[in-house]
């Protein structure tokens, strides 16, 4: 089985703080990580490889520094890592990103494509299903469990109010939830390999034979018109008092607002 996992390097948004004076994001010193849902996708692929034998390729589209995310994926135990990087790709929205990734995927053999459900910086959850559409593949999103049955996959797909067990023929695309597993650590041997040899393949727009008109900002239907930092609402009074006094203050407030 050939598995492709698409990953994104993202800033760890749980670490992001807002500068209260300027109201802007403090980006310095924010660590970059493999997007959590994507990392669960890598782990799921490695588990399938251990059970059924598979060949895993991880692809990421991004700036040259995204190489680090791919090195980490390699050190976790995947077979091949490819970085799609080219100035022509810059400014791509989800439509153009998914088309670009689908051009790269067409150059490879695949039975299963795994994307993370959504990235923690953009939270769109759109690139996975859009890749599936560009490649005309069946998709199953919000997957929390994967099993293989002959040429089919048996998947658990999660909804707000329950779940479904779905069977789908390969080739297909799934989007993975981070709740699916606990990604393993990198192995020492593989960290050694990745730091001593050129492991990450760099692919440019020429390598995927794509028309430059189809990618990047100019091919993107959506544009960002305005960005604003959220302004916090004005805060009420904070009391540092004994617990009993605190409970009383709360009760008074609830009476004042006719809650009780």
């Amino acid at each position: 089985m050939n598995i492709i996992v698409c990953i994104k390097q993202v800033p760890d948004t749980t670490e992001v703080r807002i500068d209260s004076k300027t109201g802007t994001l403090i980006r310095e010193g924010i660590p970059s990580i493999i997007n959590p849902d994507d990392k669960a996708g890598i782990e799921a692929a490695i588990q399938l490889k251990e059970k059924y034998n598979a060949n895993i390729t991880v692809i990421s589209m991004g700036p040259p520094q995204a190489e680090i995310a791919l090195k980490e994926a390699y050190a976790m135990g995947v077979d091949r890592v490819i970085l799609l990087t080219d100035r022509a790709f810059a400014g791509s929205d989800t439509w153009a990103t998914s088309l670009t990734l689908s051009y790269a995927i067409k150059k490879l053999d695949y039975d299963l494509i795994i994307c993370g459900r959504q990235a923690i910086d953009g939270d769109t959850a759109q690139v996975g299903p859009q890749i599936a559409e560009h490649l005309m593949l069946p998709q199953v999103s919000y997957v929390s469990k994967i099993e293989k049955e002959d040429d089919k996959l048996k998947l658990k797909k999660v909804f707000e109010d329950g779940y479904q067990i779905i069977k789908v023929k390969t080739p297909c695309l799934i989007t993975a939830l981070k709740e699916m597993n606990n990604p393993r650590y990198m192995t020492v041997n593989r960290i050694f390999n990745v730091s001593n040899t050129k492991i990450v393949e760099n692919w440019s727009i020429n390598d995927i034979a794509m028309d430059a008109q189809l990618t990047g900002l100019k091919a993107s239907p959506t544009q960002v018109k305005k960005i604003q930092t959220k302004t916090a609402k004005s805060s009420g009074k904070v009391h540092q008092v004994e617990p009993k006094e605190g409970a009383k203050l709360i009760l008074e407030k609830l009476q004042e607002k006719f809650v009780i």
Partner: protein
Amino acid sequence: MQNKEEYKNILVYIEQRDGIIQNVSLELISKAKDLAIKSNQKVFVYIPGYKIDEIHAKECFKYGADKCFISNDLLLKDYATETYTKVTTSLINKIKPESVLIGATTIGRDLAPRISARLYTGLTADCTSLDIDEETGNLLMTRPAFGGNILATIICPNHRPQMSTVRPGVMTKTIVNETKTIKIEYVNSSLTKDDLNIEIIETVKEKTQKKNIEDANILVSGGRGIGKKENVETLKNFADEIGGMLSGSRAIVDCGWIEPNHQVGQTGKTVRPEVYFACGISGAIQHIAGMEESELIIAINKNPEAPIFDVADLGIVGDVNQIIPLLSQELKSHKLKKEA
């Protein structure tokens, strides 16, 4: 590229599960109605499914729909990506709406990207506010990004339709007082068995609780500061006492102390109850994004510097595990006094 001039009116995709129209779809009809009045357009709704009829259409008209399109097919009985994408795309191609609004549920967010890719048009995910630019007529789609730290306004200036998924619970559904004839057009689905490229083996509804936390008037919400799982019980008792529901931050959901569907925040639910008790919640920006619209926010936290106090109407610095039981007692004696 599409000829923009041909596209007019707003289409709301109506999500039904087992024939029941989801709240978010009604919220979107109300929002579409506002936008339609502003831009002199009509509100169309589309309900794909099985055994959908004028009862469903009537519900949509109550919130401001002007025309209802329905496709009935046994192949549409359960949601599946390809069948639903195919019928919705073909309706869009037929009626050419300027904008398409879809609820940002697990179904909407599975369906919408697939349609937008097929139509080569833009899609903005999980919007929390929509408006129309009076100069250009473009739909202004605003959404939180970067873990809720920023709000980005997205436009789709050159492609049509302009598509957006909208977060459940942020738009308000309003019944309109108009007497209109219910206009329904039944549209042939033209599906064949081959369009169903997945096989649904089993559908399991998890034991539905009485209410969703989005519908609660009072939420008692716990965070890491409550210390241990046993203390969830204390919060639960207080919630029962005051007639509210229990919810929590991501931290205690990750610990397994409460169910994921009770999580408030960027990756959980957006809530706006009358009263929100933040108990031992420090107030990460992701959490605040999900509750800051609450009418009254009462925060209890040991750390006087906790960011939750920045959005609280009343803040008490102290140990939540001491204060909440005391508050429960006070509340009990208050009730007794009131009855006496």
